[in-house]
């Protein structure tokens, strides 16, 4: 069942088109990933969906409610984890959670019980009486996520949940996200970590310059890249001298040198190894290793968006991970 439907959504800031006529829908209980570099329009899209920003055009329906006309109704059933940890520094972990719960009208007993449960679940019980400002980055992120789900929302918006934190905390957060999915929650996740999207999202949309360029499950997205077959050969000798003959014999194969004793065979069809090995053998070249290269989501992203994955890595490094 479709729980979120976004149609022709637009957001402009002066001359800048932050979000340019995007449409997508999300099924109940699925993890939907929004993958794109910084400034692609991910946060702008989330902000419009949660009521922190007004769309320039388009429609947003969340659980049957028009989110543009009746955002306060929508805010009752959604949980939001922003890209920055925005809890109160002076308050301790427990107080922060209780305060966030009270904003949703939860009574004292109920919110204290729920806060304790979440602190246990997020492994923060020991630090629960310490001020938020004394928490590590990972702890802050976990508490911010706990605050976003304190009122047991149906839909959760996670904006870059693992950005800027250590590997172990990021792993724990990914597990928590998968746990939330098991509980039947619908999750809208923005990230610029390709591996993260690949690992936990049911469906992914690539967003670049405010436009969605591709949407699908990881397998659907991979199909696109799998139209090309690649085999990496490790040899005992350099084949530069025999390359022309190889290309003549196998006109459908593209041969790319990778280092001195290694080459990549690329073809639109499946690659038949025996004739290739026979020819190399006749030239006195032994093949030590032949490995099929499976495309990664990163390859698909690069192919579809034209953005080098390196750019995403640089952004990640800038953010301190």
């Amino acid at each position: 069942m479709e729980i979120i439907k976004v149609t022709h959504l637009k957001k402009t800031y002066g001359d800048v088109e932050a979000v340019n006529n995007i449409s997508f829908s999300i099924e109940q209980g699925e993890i939907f990933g929004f993958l794109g570099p910084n400034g692609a329009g991910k946060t702008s899209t989330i902000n419009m969906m949660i009521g922190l920003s007004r769309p320039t055009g388009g429609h947003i329906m969340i659980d049957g409610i028009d989110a543009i006309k009746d955002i306060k109704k929508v805010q009752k059933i959604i949980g939001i984890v922003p890209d920055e940890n925005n809890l109160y520094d002076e308050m301790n972990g427990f107080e922060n959670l209780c305060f966030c719960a009270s904003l949703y009208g939860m009574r004292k007993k109920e919110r204290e019980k729920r806060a304790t449960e979440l602190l246990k679940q997020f492994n923060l019980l020991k630090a629960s009486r310490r001020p938020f400002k004394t928490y590590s980055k990972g702890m802050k992120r976990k508490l911010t996520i706990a605050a976003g789900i304190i009122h047991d929302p149906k839909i959760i918006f996670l904006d870059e949940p693992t950005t800027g934190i250590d590997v172990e905390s990021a792993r724990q957060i990914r597990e928590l996200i998968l746990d939330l999915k098991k509980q039947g929650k619908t999750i809208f996740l923005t990230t610029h970590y390709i591996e993260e999207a690949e690992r936990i999202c049911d469906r992914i949309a690539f967003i670049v310059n405010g436009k969605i360029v591709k949407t699908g499950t990881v397998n659907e997205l991979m199909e696109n890249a799998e139209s090309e077959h690649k085999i990496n050969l490790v040899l005992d000798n350099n084949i530069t001298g025999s390359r022309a003959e190889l290309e003549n014999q196998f006109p459908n194969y593209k041969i790319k040198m990778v280092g001195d004793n290694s080459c990549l065979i690329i073809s639109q069809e499946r690659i038949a190894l025996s004739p290739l090995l026979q020819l190399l053998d006749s030239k006195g070249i032994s093949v030590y290793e032949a490995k099929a290269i499976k495309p990664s989501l990163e390859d698909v992203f690069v192919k579809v968006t034209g953005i080098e994955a390196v750019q995403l890595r640089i952004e990640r490094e800038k953010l301190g991970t």
Partner: protein
Amino acid sequence: MKTMIAFWSILKKDILNYYLKPPNISWGIIFPLSWTLMQLMRSEGNLGIVELLPGLMAMSVLFGTTSMLAVTITFERKGRSFDRLLLAPISISILVVAKILGAILFGIINAFIPVIFAAFFIDLSRINWGLTIVAIIFIAVTSALMGLLIAVSAKEVFEAQTLSNFFRFPMLFLCGLFVPLDKLPVVLKPLSFILPLTYGTDILNGSVTGNSVFSAIINFVVMLAFVILLFYLCQRNIKKKWIL
């Protein structure tokens, strides 16, 4: 009921996190006290404490409410914790009232510091306390709403402080506190009539010393109009500037 829980929590959080912090408590006491001593020294004994009270009370409320609210909101906006409040399923009006109520209470308490100080020296039984309290509440509400308006326009804490002073100091000199309204230059008189503090101070003058320019009813009606106008402007500006 759910809205009331959220409302009370926001108010309680602000009181505990900001208003009851030692620097603010001491500021709330020292500031009105300094004003009192400054005025006494300036008058060289010619001015009675009773005559000083309306001005001191008005100034304490004005400075207490505007500065605290503008600074705390800008601080929360900068740390983005204010987004939590905007994302809560409560109306902007409830949010505005919850945010300003802490500042109003802080301002009202500030107003009574000079009164407590004066009570040691003079007989305050002739003061019309009913009128005084209503006037202080009105001054506190309008000042808090002005603080909120400033907070909506400021991005940084220092910006909020600068903007606050830009409004507060001219208001102090034009509201009849230092220079009586009838002695103000003709060019400045119209300006003084568009400031809420002018009417609040006038009620206080009437209730404490018995000398007021307008009748209490006119003053209250004008103050009420200011409250409605400022409340509307605050809501409109929050929607316009914070929900982009």
